[in-house]
């Protein structure tokens, strides 16, 4: 499984490359920032949560691509993400992302120095109703449904996850509603995500304490300061499937929050910085809250 998973992402990325060379349009027509940024799972939206908008600059009748790199640096860990997104007809979005989570001192404390948890992630999103940006005369939001498939390579931690009853692949299903309140310069998003993921999948999916899908709400609010600048906040409720576990409350997890600022210096570039609060991550080893920063760069066409 892990041997195979090492290969499918590069193959898919190559496929994306061919797609880009083959015909992503040069002059796509979304308004600036309305394609969103990339969440840590790759999906277009905020930084931690998917939105109903379709990523890239492609508007109706067009196709587009974007690529991004993100680094999240809470106190005792580091997460690096690389990914690509394709958008078709402002209707369908495909995304690929690769996460590398450096466990730093926690891995060493578990007898696994240098342990990195890696996830390959595929996302598919379809817009099913509404028009988030231009339908300024109604309250009807844009609505999209999607799924996010994650394949975890836990390295030396795999036997521990097996013992905890956590699977090493899983799929999230979500529905998102996004609305730009143009007259107020405010963008709102609400997402309901059905998930089994522990720490977004980095500690597997499900566990002996709780192994069912749970539906978790996520919220984003953004205020547009200029046409190229937005600030906002996000809140993502997470399940707590590994609490209690054989480690007692040592794997308890918390909701995720952030405060962000997004800047699009040109139509094709977006930079996002955020202060994140990821709560506790493996408090058995690191008991303090994992607050820190988030930086992301995106190019899109």
């Amino acid at each position, binding site marked *: 499984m892990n041997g195979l998973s090492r290969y499918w992402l590069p193959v898919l990325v190559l496929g994306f490359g061919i797609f880009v060379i083959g015909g992503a349009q040069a*002059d*796509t*027509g*979304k*308004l600036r920032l309305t394609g969103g940024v990339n969440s840590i799972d790759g999906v277009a939206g905020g930084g931690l949560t998917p939105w109903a908008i379709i990523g890239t600059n492609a*508007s*109706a*009748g*067009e196709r587009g691509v974007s690529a991004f790199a993100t680094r999240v640096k809470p106190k005792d860990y580091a997460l690096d993400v690389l990914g690509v997104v394709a958008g078709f007809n*402002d209707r369908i979005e495909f995304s690929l992302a690769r996460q590398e989570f450096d466990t730093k001192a926690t891995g060493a404390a578990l007898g696994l120095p240098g342990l990195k948890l890696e996830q390959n992630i595929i996302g598919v999103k379809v817009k099913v109703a509404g*028009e988030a*940006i*231009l*339908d*300024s*005369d*109604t309250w009807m939001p844009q609505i999209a449904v999607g799924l996010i498939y994650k394949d975890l390579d836990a390295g030396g931690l795999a036997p521990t996850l097996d013992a905890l009853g956590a699977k090493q692949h899983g799929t999230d299903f979500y529905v998102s509603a996004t609305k730009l*309140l*143009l*007259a*107020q*310069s*405010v963008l709102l998003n609400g997402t309901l995500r059905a998930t089994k993921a522990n720490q977004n999948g980095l500690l597997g999916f499900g566990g002996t304490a709780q192994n069912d899908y749970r539906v978790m709400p996520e919220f984003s*609010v953004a*205020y*547009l*300061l*200029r*046409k190229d600048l937005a600030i*906002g*906040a996000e*809140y993502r409720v997470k399940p707590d499937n590994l609490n209690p576990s054989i480690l007692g409350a040592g794997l308890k997890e918390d909701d995720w*929050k952030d*405060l962000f600022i997004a800047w699009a210096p040109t139509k094709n570039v977006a930079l996002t910085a955020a202060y994140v*609060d990821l709560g506790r991550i493996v408090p058995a080893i690191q008991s303090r809250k994992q607050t820190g920063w988030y930086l992301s760069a995106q190019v899109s066409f």
Partner: protein
Amino acid sequence: MTRLLITLLLAFTLGQASAQSTGNDSLYKAFGEKAGLTLLMDDFVQRLVAEPRTQAFFKNTDLSRLKTQLTDQLCMLSGGPCKYTGRDMKSAHMGMAVGKSEFNALVEVLQEAMDAKNIAFTDQNRMLALLASMHRDIITK
């Protein structure tokens, strides 16, 4: 975090309230009334004709008539004492094959024109909110 959310929601609620209570001409005044709108639409139309993504739509257009009609339309929408007497948006754009991308290009050109007149971003968005929903009648492709 929670405090910021509350502040943002409060700002939003107050924004709503002020938007509702101003069933008046505050937006019209923010755009410099009839004189300001006339200058803005003169510049906007010049920019539309110069912009590669939109110029084709105006090849056979009487530009001075278009400027007058746009001025009247925005004047009326923003609460000013004008009456737009032109055609409705649907019949005015019939057969022009405007796509969503071109509509967005027009919005960008309007934003540039409003920037050039130093109209506050919040007022720009209040005006755009009155115009954006017209996409349903204008986009035909």
